[in-house]
């Protein structure tokens, strides 16, 4: 059932407050900065929020949905619809420059632009990932799969700290 409350806000205003919701795993960046929040529309007085997963099995998707519903509820917007879309497929290119710096300061090496791991097989993954702690280039890949689906595991050979790298897809 449509409700009048949605009309209290414009699409832009709703986008703005939803943009403040932090990523549940990486709280220094928001769901808008991450690129998971795609679109906010008002259709016949109903708020429709479109999101896309980083990875098909990303367990945070439920948390994203719950956080969005909670925020809308707090703003008095009832019966919203959340749509999940898979196309265009999420890419790390949607993470803006400001968010890349936030990631680095948080201790996660940000994705390196233009180094999308398109090569399928051997020898295509050689790239320099700077240690987010000491900035050394002397690092090595431990595993393509890290603590969450979107990260790879690296090790710094200078400061000897392990760290996460936000992998490019």
């Amino acid at each position, binding site marked *: 059932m449509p409700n009048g409350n949605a009309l209290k806000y414009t699409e832009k205003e709703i986008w703005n407050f939803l943009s403040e919701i932090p990523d549940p795993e990486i709280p220094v960046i928001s769901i808008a900065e991450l690129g998971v929040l795609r679109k906010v529309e008002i259709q016949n007085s109903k708020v429709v929020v479109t999101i896309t997963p980083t*990875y098909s*099995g990303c367990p945070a998707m439920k948390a994203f949905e719950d956080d969005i519903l909670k925020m809308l509820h707090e703003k008095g917007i009832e019966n919203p619809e959340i749509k999940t879309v898979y196309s265009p497929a999420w890419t790390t290119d949607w993470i803006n420059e400001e968010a890349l710096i936030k990631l680095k300061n948080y201790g996660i090496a940000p994705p390196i632009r233009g180094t999308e*791991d398109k090569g399928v097989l051997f020898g295509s993954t050689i790239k320099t990932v700077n240690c987010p702690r000491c900035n050394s280039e002397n690092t090595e890949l431990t595993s393509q799969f890290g603590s969450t689906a979107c990260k790879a595991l690296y090790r710094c050979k200078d400061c000897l700290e392990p760290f996460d790298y936000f992998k490019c897809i």
Partner: protein
Amino acid sequence: MTLNEALINYCLRLGDSSLILGQRMAEWCSNGPILEEDIAMSNIALDLIGQARTMLSYAGELEGEGRTENDLAYKRLEREFFNNLISERPNGHFGDTVIRNLLHSAFYYHLYSALTKSSDKNISAFAGKSLKEVTYHLRHNAEWVVRLGDGTKESHDKVQQSLNDIWEYTEDLFAMNEADELLISELISVDLITIKPLWDKTINEIFERATLTRPKDAFMQKGSLNGMHSEVLGHLLAEMQFLPRAYPDAKW
């Protein structure tokens, strides 16, 4: 068979193959040979189960009888599953797992690449998303196969045996039925005959680097399109479906 029935069948095949291999990979959780690999296998399980959710939800939607992704995953019997036979093969030792996963991921890498051009926008979106994930899986599996195949005599002999043992299940990947004919004519799916040479090229390159010998085609298993499986699927489903069947109203 109507076009809608064909598409439902196709979605179940894609969804079930991801779901069953995803469940196999989840069996590795906490049993990996090293911590990094344990994490990697759980990550792969997660990607596969995510892919399965997309396809099973879509199959339920097309069916229009209110069955959800959970109903399809947890409330169907063995003969109603259409996963390809290779995805249900048991994990065995780590070498058995990486060989199975290599053959599987090389197939889906090429299939999803082709399906990104599907005239069905849900299939093409699914393929585009899944392709990014399976690219990582394929590379990961290939690296392990090379490391083990071109490793010590023992590791080489073990994975060669793994390859010999599973080979008879590979032809089933390329099986097609009436649904394929309909979907190919509508440009929704692709003729798997076109995927075969691409798959061959990828795995042959890896076998060469891994110093492994490609087994000769002999007796080849088939039957997944008719829901014919080996007994291992029943055991897998018994574990996977236990909770929702024992407690049908359970919520979390």
